[in-house]
């Protein structure tokens, strides 16, 4: 016991909300169970077109959220770090025959983390949109290099890389269901670890740097190390997402799959879902990846034939754009905050306000 505690003795309360994991844990395990059950029940379309991309983009969103939402460093290099993860995993599997898949994924993540640290160095000096713009250097340089130097893609004519053997412990994981479970496992583990991180003192350091770095430094947070750690951790997660994107989702990719648009998409997921919220990455991914599919399915079901196909597509695009604007006006803190507010309202219902 410290001397401060000796100075005033107040019983420490029992309930500690931030660190109260019980309901979160229950919800999390519940969702995981649903995800596993879904994996046994749904068909190829759901795996290949919905669940797998949704989970992977949520994972990428989670990774970027660690950096942007928690540590306050907005990056547009996500696509590049995904590319590093994908190309590194590919080369590890190619060049180290017999390397088990999980290790290759972790290895890919580590390479991405290294790239993240390298391109995170400017954050020690540069802030705000200037930093964001400077991460574009990574975004343009890295995919360029993968396209430029044939070594990275093992000199294929098309410059693309293809899913290596997806197997683990004798299981063939290259079926849609197998790829789904690979993805789900990676997402579940990384989500769990990320939750641990953001709830720890290290996560607190991230947020302190985000909210006010001078004050954080004065409190003893090592700013430089914290920022670079954030870049590393975030890029690791993003790198794994990149590898999954390449191999569990698309199968064959080239550097164009990781272009600036990819970076933007992930950033949208983070902002729409809610910065600084783990759940936000998932909700955001649902919004950004699934909503257009939903709109398009609904539109084709109800309006195909009635409205000109091209105009219908344009209307969908306008609708999606308008939804983004409306959502941000209604709740600038993102969908996760909207849900939280909604829950609070429910809890106090019918009392006002």
């Amino acid at each position, binding site marked *: *016991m*410290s*001397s*401060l*505690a000796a*100075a*005033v003795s*107040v019983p*420490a*309360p029992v309930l*500690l*909300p*931030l*660190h109260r994991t019980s309901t979160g844990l229950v919800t999390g395990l519940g969702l995981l169970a649903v995800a596993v059950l879904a994996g046994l029940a749904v068909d190829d379309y759901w795996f290949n077109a919905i669940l797998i991309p949704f989970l992977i983009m949520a994972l990428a969103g989670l990774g970027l959220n660690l950096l942007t939402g928690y540590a306050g460093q907005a990056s547009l290099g996500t696509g590049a770090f995904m590319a590093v993860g994908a190309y590194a995993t590919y080369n590890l599997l190619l060049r180290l025959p017999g390397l088990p898949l999980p290790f290759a994924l972790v290895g890919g993540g580590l390479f991405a983390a290294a790239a993240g640290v390298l391109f995170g160095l400017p954050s020690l000096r540069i802030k705000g949109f200037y930093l964001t713009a400077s991460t574009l250097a990574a975004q343009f340089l890295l995919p360029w290099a993968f396209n430029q130097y044939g070594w990275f893609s093992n000199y294929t004519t098309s410059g693309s890389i293809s899913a290596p053997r997806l197997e683990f412990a004798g299981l063939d994981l290259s079926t849609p269901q197998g790829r789904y479970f690979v993805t789900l496992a990676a997402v579940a583990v990384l989500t769990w*670890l990320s939750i*641990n*991180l953001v709830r*720890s*003192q*290290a*996560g*607190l*350091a991230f*947020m*302190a740097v*985000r*909210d*006010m770095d*001078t*004050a*954080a*430094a*004065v*409190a*003893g*947070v*090592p*700013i430089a190390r914290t920022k670079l*750690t954030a870049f590393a*951790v975030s890029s690791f997660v993003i790198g794994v997402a990149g590898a999954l994107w390449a191999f569990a989702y698309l199968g064959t990719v080239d550097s164009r799959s990781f272009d600036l648009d990819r970076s933007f998409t992930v950033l949208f997921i983070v902002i729409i879902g809610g910065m*600084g919220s783990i759940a936000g990455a998932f909700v955001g991914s649902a919004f950004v990846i699934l909503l257009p599919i939903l709109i398009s399915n609904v539109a084709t079901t109800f309006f195909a034939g009635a409205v000109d196909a091209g105009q219908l597509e344009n209307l969908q695009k306008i609708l999606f754009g308008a939804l983004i604007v409306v959502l941000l006006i209604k709740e600038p803190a993102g969908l996760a905050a909207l849900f939280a507010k909604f829950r609070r309202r429910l809890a106090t219902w019918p009392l006002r306000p």
Partner: protein
Amino acid sequence: MTGPLLSVRDVSLSFKGIKALTALSFDVAEGEICSLIGPNGAGKSSLLNVLNGVYRADAGEIVFAGERFDRPTPIEAARRGIGRTFQNNALFKRLTVLDNVLAGLSRTARAGLFDHVFRTGRARREAAAFRDLAETAIAFVDLQGHRDALVGQLPYGVQKRVELARALVSEPRLLLLDEPMAGMNHDEKAEIARLIVDVNAELGTTVVLIEHDIGVVMGLSDHVVVLDYGRKVGDGRPEDVRENPDVVAAYLGTRH
């Protein structure tokens, strides 16, 4: 230990054309409460910024706890046990009160990233110990009722106390307080003053305080340093300073 805890020797600081501090020297003894007063723009906050590494002095030396310490970084200052509150609340606005206070423990954190991510025993033990400390600090400044509130939405005066708790929780040897009572009413000031006295008395924390309420300064300080235009114009016991005609003219005005 003999000698002052903090010794400032000929410290100068300037910004494009403005001399914020000019060859400033003074000592703070271990365990005392030293107040810095002076007109607006005299350089008080700048001095605190130099002491804990937010600004780098152009010249001069600082000796803290017997060691030379001229141009510290904020981290070094924190590691050596210098705590700080700010004039414009520098809180982590989107964190709860509890988290803000926990962040104040960063300088003593030992668990690494790996520990945190995998929740090793070490991380868990540290987290538990930190939480006890934070809860105690929160209780100390009487913020239990706000523990889980987001700091950004708290009234100004409450924020000031959060900042105090954040600075206190890691039990620094030297506490730098920049106008901790600004924007408070009489009762609230008395409350904060009591806290400062308690910290000083119970923990032996040395305090350097900037405050414009002269009543508080007189009541609280062992020692007052007066700055004007970056220079020291007075240094001594509160009573003496108060009588100093220069101080009255430049700072207090006739009514006091």
